[in-house]
């Protein structure tokens, strides 16, 4: 599909925890192993993680002039902030790939852009596999989109990146391979004009059953936090306020909870990673340990008997 005059210039953008750098590195490595000129550079700020993460990849037959460029042939943007950030890299000929949950924003921000492709990677990863393989679905889709990268080369590069993790847990390999294939499939479908138009499937309830989030399908399918609205869950003696827009999914609270009621939710947080919720262990005793140790003030506990803490 992509047939640029010179080398293919790719920008990937996402939240710090979404793994776009891994995708970029694998793509560049796969290109290199397939005999192309390839260059990858992350845009590295002072933050180790967090913030919008940009990756620049160039692939082609010509020697690569500079590690940076201003107009991309292919842009991938996978969070709201990322979509806003990549505007400068879009030209008339640029293809913009984005996660399907960002459909409205992309339309609103770049109404005249013709080459828009929505990939429901987040949805597919969450529903069919695990939110953490979201970036591998993206890898599959973008690798396919370039039309340059042989699938075996992408798989090989994936092995080189994540092989050590697969060795520890072979089921991960299977899931990642599946994610890769689904990504490739989604790309073909999207380019064929089927699906990918931003439609959201039904968002399932969290594992807490009726103790799960009160409003699981807020905003854009409740996938990614857009406001400082809390998810309020009543559990045991506590009313658990969780602010997805602040929760970075570190899990410190999970380990500090004396009754181990806190666990991972399906809702994604500030960095596109799962947030926490109660309802995974004994009922909450409203001790507020989780609130105390949360480095992001993403948790607030209220006693259900009405006593203000």
């Amino acid at each position, binding site marked *: 599909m992509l047939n640029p005059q010179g080398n293919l210039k790719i920008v990937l953008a996402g939240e710090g925890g979404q793994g776009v750098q891994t995708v970029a590195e694998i793509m560049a490595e796969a290109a290199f192993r397939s005999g192309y000129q390839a260059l990858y550079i992350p*845009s590295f*700020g*002072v*933050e180790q993680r967090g*913030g919008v993460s940009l990756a620049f990849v160039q692939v082609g037959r010509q020697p690569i002039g500079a590690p*940076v460029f201003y107009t991309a042939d292919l842009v991938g943007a996978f969070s709201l902030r990322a979509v806003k950030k990549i505007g400068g890299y879009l030209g008339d000929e640029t293809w913009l790939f984005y996660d399907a949950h960002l459909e409205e924003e992309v339309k609103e921000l770049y109404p005249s852009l013709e080459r828009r492709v929505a990939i429901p990677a987040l949805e597919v990863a969450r529903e069919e596999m695990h939110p953490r393989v979201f970036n591998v679905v993206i890898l599959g889709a973008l690798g396919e989109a370039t039309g340059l990268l042989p699938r075996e080369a992408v798989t090989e590069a994936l092995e080189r990146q994540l092989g050590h993790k697969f060795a520890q847990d072979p089921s991960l390999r299977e899931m990642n391979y599946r994610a890769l294939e689904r990504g490739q499939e989604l790309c073909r479908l999207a380019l064929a004009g089927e699906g990918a138009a931003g439609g959201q499937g039904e968002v399932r309830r969290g594992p807490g059953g009726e103790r799960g989030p009160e409003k699981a399908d807020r905003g854009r399918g409740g996938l990614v936090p857009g406001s400082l609205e809390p998810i309020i869950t009543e559990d045991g003696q506590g009313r658990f306020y969780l602010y997805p827009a602040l929760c970075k999914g570190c899990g410190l609270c999970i380990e500090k909870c004396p009754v181990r009621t806190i666990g991972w939710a399906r809702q994604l947080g500030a960095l596109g990673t799962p947030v926490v919720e109660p309802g995974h262990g004994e009922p909450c005793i409203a001790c507020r340990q989780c609130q105390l140790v949360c480095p992001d003030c993403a948790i607030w506990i209220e006693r259900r008997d009405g006593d203000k803490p």
Partner: protein
Amino acid sequence: METKPIRGEQRAFMTGNEVIAWAALAAGAEVMYGYPITPQSEIMHYWARLAPRYGRRFLQTEDELAAGFTTLGAVLAGEVAFTATAGPGNVLMQEPLSMAEMMRLPAVVIIAQRGGPSTGTVIYSQQEFNLTCYGGNGEGLRIVYSPSHHQELFDYTLKAFHTAWKYRFPTFILGDGYQSKMREPVTLYDPAERGLEVAPSRPLVGVPGTPGRDRPPVHLRNTYNLEEELYEALQETIEAYDRAAPEIAEWEAYRAEDAEYLVVAHGVVARAAREGVRLLRDAGIRAGAFRPITLRPFPQKELREMASRAKTVLVMESSYGQLEREIRAQLYGLTVPLKGYRRPGVGITPEEVVREVQKYATRSAAPDA
């Protein structure tokens, strides 16, 4: 407590270091933080003695880094503050001054150049030209005055505080060990009595009102996350500098209008150049002298005008081509031959100026003889 250190015009005969201490007092400097190094230490000695009489402050810090950064702390608090250093101390001072350049902090720094590289000599040189004009990991967005006698040490030290706060760039007095230690006459005065403008200082942090409620908090940073962010911030500073440059740049010429042989020198060497030119003129050689008083920003237009009329430009300096490289860049495109006289770490006399100019004057005169 006495607040005016100087009343009326006071004729004095003193060392350059003492002149600087008096000038800083007269300018209304509230604070000096410093670390000892020859040949500037007496600035601190005089200041430490005089300051308490006028309610001013002094702290001897643990090193030049701390001297520079405490000075920046005082500037952030809104006080007129300065420090002084030399040689290896100037090397360390570049770190705080780099922060001052980035954050537009109007600190004043007195440099008494000594021999280098390394510990060099404690005596004299003009080898801190590069470091003072372009030091730090930046673009040289600073103001550098190079005085050549004690009256100028006084005048320009006064002025440095004004320029620093008016334009908000770190400002240097680039002196040297000779000027620091020599005694000569000077007239001390109060700037207000002469009607001189002194730009007011103001606090940058700790300003009135509850931050976040009555006003936005002041958030000052020197780190940017992306190349473009830095570029944008820097572009603003560069534009401010370029706008201010014509108002700040200063120069002096002596019999340069019709000079065939133009001697370019700065600081104490400019005195020798001037005297040498006088001697050469007496001998019938059409010599002239040009000195940049501000090395940053550089008075390029005036130098180009005079240089374009000359047969030869001769750059004389107590360093190995630091000034010459600057002049070469400033004169790029002119066809006038440019010669250098490089004496790193050693003084230059009027006799040397005469001798060097005569070399070229004799050569060019030869075909007619």
